[in-house]
């Protein structure tokens, strides 16, 4: 049952990442990996909210597996984030590569912290 929850959540999260990335790239172009940035920050926000709620007893372990481990885990990605950073650096855009890392970590952590506090109020 736990496995099923993780897999089902991920089977929603991964295509959601793909489609979000396409939509964001169509809007903002390929110069900066805004698509991956968007899904990573959004996923960190949702997981922060869920974990804050779980600490306060408002979210159960099944919801954590489905939405946390499954959906948020697959919605966000470290592999594409790293690969896109490497491509920026290899293409000579070292400043943008560094900015991608700094902005993703700062925004992801900021979103997780703010949402955790909010989740604790639930």
């Amino acid at each position, binding site marked *: 049952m736990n496995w099923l929850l993780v897999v089902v959540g991920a089977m929603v999260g*991964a295509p959601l990442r793909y489609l979000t990335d396409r939509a964001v790239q169509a809007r903002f172009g*390929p110069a900066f990996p805004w698509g991956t940035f968007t*899904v990573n920050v959004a996923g960190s926000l949702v997981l922060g909210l869920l974990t804050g709620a779980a600490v306060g007893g408002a979210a159960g372990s099944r919801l954590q597996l489905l939405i946390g481990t*499954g959906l948020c885990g697959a919605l966000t*990605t470290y*592999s594409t984030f790293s690969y896109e950073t490497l491509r920026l650096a290899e293409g000579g855009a070292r400043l943008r590569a560094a900015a991608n890392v700094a902005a993703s*970590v700062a925004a992801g952590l900021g979103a*997780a912290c703010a949402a955790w506090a909010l989740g604790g109020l639930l």
Partner: protein
Amino acid sequence: MTAPHRPEARPVRAGQAPVVAAVAAGGGLGAAARYAATLWWPTGPDGFPWTVLLVNVVGCAVIGAFMVAVTEVWSPHRLVRPFFGTGVLGGFTTFSTYAVDIRHLLGTGHPGTALAYLAATPLAALTAVWLAAAAARRALRGRHRLAPATGSKGGARA
């Protein structure tokens, strides 16, 4: 990254259904593998999150080699990259758990561990993707003629 024959960022069409399905199937597999890793090698709630760090670093190394193979050496079936790169590796690695684990370590009075984890993950992940891509280029060069690298076009579907 997008295959050169595919225009960048077209609106999603009905023909995208097999790609979306491949991403979903791969994502389910990748996430199950990540879940298995956390069950097999559990880390204490207040300890350094070694398992997720290793999962992310391994996923980054694999994508480095994989992307060199599919963009510079081979032209695989059009569903290989969505399934394995976007799906399996994207589902295996996670950014949200990384961010939330740092928040957890900060909240439980482990700022040193939180800071070490915050810095170690991107450092190790970027080193892994860089070394794996370079190693793959070396290993595959000679066996296959390298096509010129396509431009950096980004995309969470890599």
